[in-house]
Structure formats: C-alpha cells, structure tokens
C-alpha cells in the first residue's frame, strides 16, 4: 500500500509537472533560437527586445536581437536574402526597402490573416503597406503618419480668437486647409514674445522631404487617380514638377519663414523641442511631437497639446487632364510618412513557424499597445485598439489631449484618401536628389519650379538607370495597383 501511495504520488507529481511545462510553453518552442535583426536601438530594437522577453517566457524559445547601424542594415539584409543564407529568422526593416526584399520573404500564415487581432490593424497597413502583389509578406510593427499639433491655450485665448477673426474673417480653429495653416502661422508669428507660427523639419538630411510630401499630398493625391502622386503610374514619368507639387513647395517655403529663425536647420528632433519649448503655435510631424509635448518633464506646454489630422485642400491637381479639380469639400490626404517599420520572415528561414509566432506576439494588441506608450521604443499607433484605449494613454496625456491625439491618429490612418509614401528600389537615391534641390529652394537659391524641374529631370534619369519597367512594376505594387 505504501509503495502504491509513493508510486501514485510520484505519477501525480510527474503529470502535474508536465502539465505545468505545457502551460508555460504555449506553443512549445523549447530549443528554438530565433535571430531577429534591425537597426541599432533603442528605437525599434528595444521593442523587439521587450517582446522577446515575453515571447521567451510564453514559448520557452529564445530570441537573439542582432542590431546593425542604419547604414549597414540594408546591405546586411539584402546580402543575406539574395544569397539564401539562413542567417535571420525575423527582419525588421524600413518599408522603402520592401521592393528589394519581397522576392525573398515568406507569406504570413493564413491563420494570422483573420480574426479580431487582424481586423484591429488599421486598414492602410493591412491592405496596403503589408501587401505586395496581393500577398501579405510583412507585418507592420510601427505606425507612421503625419498629423497636426497645435497649442490649445493659444487657440482658445479669447483675445487671439477675436483678433484672428477680425484679420482673416473666419474663426480661429485647428487648420482644415493648408491656406488656413499658413494664416494661423502668420497670425502667431510674434518673435518679440518668443512665439513663431509653426515648426517643421527643413534641414537636409533631417527628415525634411517627408514634411514637404505632407504639404504636397494635399494638392497631388487625387482621389480618382490612385497612385499618381509621385509618378505617372502608366509611364513612370516623374510628377514632382507639376503645379500641385509646386504649390506644395511654395507653401512649404512659406512655412519656413513663419518658423523660428534657425528652422532651416531643424530636423524632426528640433521640431519637437521647439513645440514642446513653447516656441511654435502649430506644427506637423509624426506622433512623437504630441507625446513629447504632453510630458511635463520635457515640455512647457503640457496640458495644452491639441491634435488633428493634417490640413487638406479643396483643389487637387489632375495629372491626366493637367488641370486643377475643384471639390465642394476639403479632401483630407493625411500622408503616411515613412510608412512604419515592417517585420517579416525570410523564405530561407528554417524556423518560419516560430518566427511568425514571435511577430504575432510582438504585434499583438497588448504587447504593441504597451510599446506604443513606452518612450524610446519608437513605436507609434498602428492598431485601432491603440487609438481607442484612452486608459492606456491617460498615463501620458490629459483626457482631452488623449482624445484629440488618438482621434487624429485614427482618423488619419482610416482616411479615405490617405496618401502612401513612395516605396521604390533605390528610394534614398531619389530622396537624396530631392533633398539637395529642396534645400536650395528653401535657401532662395532657386525658385520652386526650377528646383522641382531639376528633381523631375534627375528622377527620370535615375528611373532609366535602374530600369524603367522594373521601377514601374515596383511602384504599381507599392501603390496597390495591378501590374500592367
């Protein structure tokens, strides 16, 4: 009897221990070590690392996050992919590189492409940025859209409201159009009080061109001609010198005159510092501006940070008819600047199942929601749940700030006429040309038309050099258009 008791107790303990083990490892990836690569942290790399800890506890697997400096990340990934080596199981990369990677990526498991977590991803990511020629080849792990930020205290000051209405004939409120944006900037341009109209990035090499794209999107992202903003989607001829782009550049230059005196040297970091330092009445940029400005430790304007979608326009250039099309309402074209980091699994990985499971965990509503409110991860909202969970954001914002911030993010990524960033092989060769000419135009060394004519000429030359048909195919795929 004693032997039986000991034996049955031992069996029960064994059964319990195996049950505990099964509970601890769900799914069980014991002995599986994944190698994930991205840029040197903290941005994005820390999000991968934070998720790695949780995934390791959940599955008993292991993740090594391998970081490379930004300049080495692309060559490292592209060399690995093209040689077919099984070096990385997960790659986290800039969306602009997607055209060069897609041939070597595995498709997301169908099970991940349905259910509430899938539907929770904002449509622009789920239907456009994660898809290449009809296949879901990557998972967005960071949201990137430009929004509008303004000072609530300045905008709601009765004296300002009265003076603004007298001067411009309409109510002072968050700008709905780019014209209003410039009017407001002009109105608040008060250097003697240490306040300037706006703050944007104008520095060459300082994310400058994305801010210009945001201006231009309002005039060039035609709702009836999808994918025609940057290039003619039939011929791949550059569109960047059409009248819509020229107007965008004229207004971008005008903004630089309504910004602090050193704004031509502003990167996005300085934009945030200027807004949080109370120097600017309004600003455009990524979601980081709102988060930094709302933080009392970093900001002089916390509690007064309002957010909205980017301004739009009721006139958009039609590249087909070569005329301005008038609309009876303001068409909002929020710009998906950069487009958000993507995570993918190379087809050469021998641990694809585990790798996709790690990505699923990394981008789950809970884990990514925490990353989005954790400073230094570089993760901005990309799920609907990121923008609806007010409690999550109440740690950072006041109730009103959170409501406006999340509303702006949600409205932007779900907007009907959202403008996609270009994703082309050689993306940074195109933008390098643009940056130089933009910089000259901002410094007054060339007119907007001259600058953009020069960009168009050089872009067309570059397209020919890279192969027009190949570039056209990539451009159409990136804009979600069917291949010709």
């Amino acid at each position, binding site marked *: 009897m004693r032997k039986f008791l000991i034996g049955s107790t031992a069996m029960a303990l064994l059964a319990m221990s195996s049950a505990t083990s099964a509970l601890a490892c769900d799914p069980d990836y014991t002995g599986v070590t994944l190698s994930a690569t991205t840029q040197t942290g903290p941005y994005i790399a820390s999000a991968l690392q934070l998720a790695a800890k949780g995934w390791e506890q959940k599955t008993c697997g292991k993740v090594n996050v391998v970081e490379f400096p930004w300049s080495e990340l692309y060559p490292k990934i592209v060399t690995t992919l093209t040689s077919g080596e099984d070096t990385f199981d997960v790659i986290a990369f800039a969306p602009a590189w997607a055209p*060069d990677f897609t041939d070597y990526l595995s498709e997301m498991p169908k099970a991940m492409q349905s259910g509430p977590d899938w539907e929770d991803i904002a449509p622009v990511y789920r239907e456009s940025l994660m898809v290449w020629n009809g296949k879901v080849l990557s998972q967005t792990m960071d949201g990137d859209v430009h929004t509008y930020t303004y000072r609530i205290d300045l905008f709601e000051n009765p004296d300002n409201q009265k003076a603004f209405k007298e001067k411009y004939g309409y109510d002072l409120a968050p700008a709905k159009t780019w014209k209003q944006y410039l009017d407001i900037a002009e109105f608040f341009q008060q250097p003697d009080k240490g306040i300037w109209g706006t703050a944007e990035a104008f520095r*060459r090499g*300082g994310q400058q061109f994305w801010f210009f794209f945001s201006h231009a999107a309002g005039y060039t992202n035609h709702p009836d001609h999808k994918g025609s903003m940057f290039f003619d989607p039939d011929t791949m001829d550059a569109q960047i010198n059409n009248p819509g782009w020229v107007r965008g550049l004229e207004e971008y230059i005008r903004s630089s005159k309504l910004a*602090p005196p050193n704004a031509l*040297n502003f990167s996005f970091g300085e934009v945030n510092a200027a807004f949080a330092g109370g120097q600017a009445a309004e600003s455009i940029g990524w979601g980081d501006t709102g988060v930094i400005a709302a933080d009392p430790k970093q900001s002089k304007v916390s509690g007064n940070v309002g957010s909205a979608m980017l301004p739009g326009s009721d006139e958009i250039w039609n590249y087909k008819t070569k005329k301005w099309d008038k609309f009876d309402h303001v068409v909002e074209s929020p710009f998906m600047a950069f487009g958000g980091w993507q995570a993918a699994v190379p087809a050469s990985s021998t641990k694809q199942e585990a790798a996709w499971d790690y990505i699923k965990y990394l981008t789950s509503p809970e884990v990514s929601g925490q990353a989005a409110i954790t400073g230094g991860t570089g993760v901005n909202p990309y799920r609907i749940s990121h923008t609806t969970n007010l409690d999550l954001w109440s740690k950072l914002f006041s109730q009103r700030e959170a409501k406006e911030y999340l509303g702006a993010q949600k409205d932007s990524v779900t907007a009907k006429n959202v403008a996609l960033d270009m994703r082309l092989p050689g993306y940074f060769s195109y933008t390098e040309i643009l940056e130089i000419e933009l910089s000259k135009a901002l410094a007054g060394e060339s007119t907007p038309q001259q600058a953009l004519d020069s960009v168009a000429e050089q872009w067309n030359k570059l397209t020919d050099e890279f192969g027009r048909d190949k570039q056209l195919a990539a451009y159409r795929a990136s804009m979600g258009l069917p291949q010709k």
Partner: protein
Amino acid sequence: MTRNDPIKHVFIWPALLIVLVISIFPLIYSLTTSFMSLRLVPPIPPRFVGFGNYIELLQNPRFWHVARTTSIIAFIAVALQYIIGFAIALALNARVPGEGIFRVGFLLPMLVAPVAVALIARQILNPTMGPLNELMALFGFPNLPFLTQTKWAIGAIISVEVWQWTPFVILMLLAGLQTLPDDVYEAAALENASPWQQFWGITFPMMLPISVAVVFIRLIESYKIIDTVFVMTGGGPGISTETLTLFAYQEGFKKFNLGYTSALSFLFLIVITIIGLVYLAILKPYLEKHK
C-alpha cells in the same frame, strides 16, 4: 645565418602576406570597384565601366563645388590655426606664471570628440536660444543665421575647426620652440636685435621644418572633415557646405553607389596627393635655405 639561408623566407613571407592582406588588398579591391558600375540599392549586377565613374565625377558640377568648399574650409582653417597656434605657443614658451594651467586649458578642445564639439557648437550658435544670440542681441544683432546661410555656415564650421584643432598646432610648435638653442638668442640680444627681429631672423626660420610638417598634417586632416559638417549643417543649405568626405558618405551610404564612391575616394586621394606635392615643392627652396 647567411644571406642565402632559406630560413629567411619563414620570417619574410608571413610579414609580407600580412601587409598585403591588411594594407594593399583593400586598396586594390577599392580601385577595382572604382572601374565598375556597382550598386547595392537597388541591387544591379556589377558591370565594368572603365573610367566611366571618373569621367562622370569630373563632369559633375557637384564634385567641383564640393572640392572648392573643402579647400576653402581647409586652407582658411589651417592658416588661422597656424597663426593663432604659433602666437599662443610663443606666449606659453615665455614661461609665464601658471603656464601649466594655460597649457592644459588650451589643449582641452583637442581631446573632445568632433561630434560632441559640433553638437556644442550647434547649441551655442542656436539663433534663438543660444548664448551667442543673447550676446549679439545686446549689440542689436538678434537671430543671426549662423548655420542656415552659406557664408555664415562656412564661417561657423571654420571657427569650430580652429577652436578644436589649434591646440594640436600649439602642442607641436611648443615642443619645437622648447628645442631651440638659447645661445642664438643670447647672441642676438648682444647685437641689440629687437624681439620682432629675433622672431623673423631666428625663431621663424628655425621653426620652419616643424611648421611645414604641422601645416601638412592639419591640411590633410582638414580635407577629411565630415563629422563637424554633418552635425552642424548636414551639408546644407543645398550643397553649399558639403565637403568631399560628406559627398562620399552620401553616395556610399545613402545611394549605396559603391563604384562611384570608390572612384570619388581615389579622386580624393589624387587631390590630396597633388596638394601635398605642390605644397612641399613650393616650400622646398625655403627648407633647403634654412637647413
């Protein structure tokens, strides 16, 4: 061991191979690449283009603009470093009280990383929040465009270069000054030579060899300037403050245009070599004269 002892190969060949692998091979590889059309982004199969990259570069106005900007920065900065450095070295050589503190104080900028120096400069030159703005505002010149207008920006970069690297010139020239023999000065004093005459008749000629070396080193280093420019202006506005190395960086790490970048690197090497040879050729008669 005799001259023909085969054991010599055991000692010579490993050393030779190491030199070849570490030093010569990368240069040969880079030279070969400069004759190829080789892009990493988008990946295009390598193609032999002969001198195509070199011709394209020499026909590119940006290359000449960048070479001119680099030369302006290098020559003006080094000239100022030499003049200021020599003056301070002379003062320190006079063994004034507290000379040790001055010496350490003057050498500090050289010990700071150029990126950190550039960041500090950017903050000082901030036209709205920087201390220099506050000072200039007192004189009625607020919000000067230190880093956003070409002439100001080049002036700012030169100033930072001078501030950071004058200590190197001081260090070298001070070492030289301390080796000059006292008896020559005593003889000059007996002849009632003024300090001015002593400087031009004794100090400057005797310091000429070391001066030539110091200026040569600084000139080559200044031509390689990238970090200060990258942080302070990013090469802007336009390409007005872009230097040769920054141009190579943009081509190499933004466009991943490796063939073109290799050709640019070798043209850079040729430019530096020509400048060095011309510089030494001009000074050779003076050096011979004061040998």
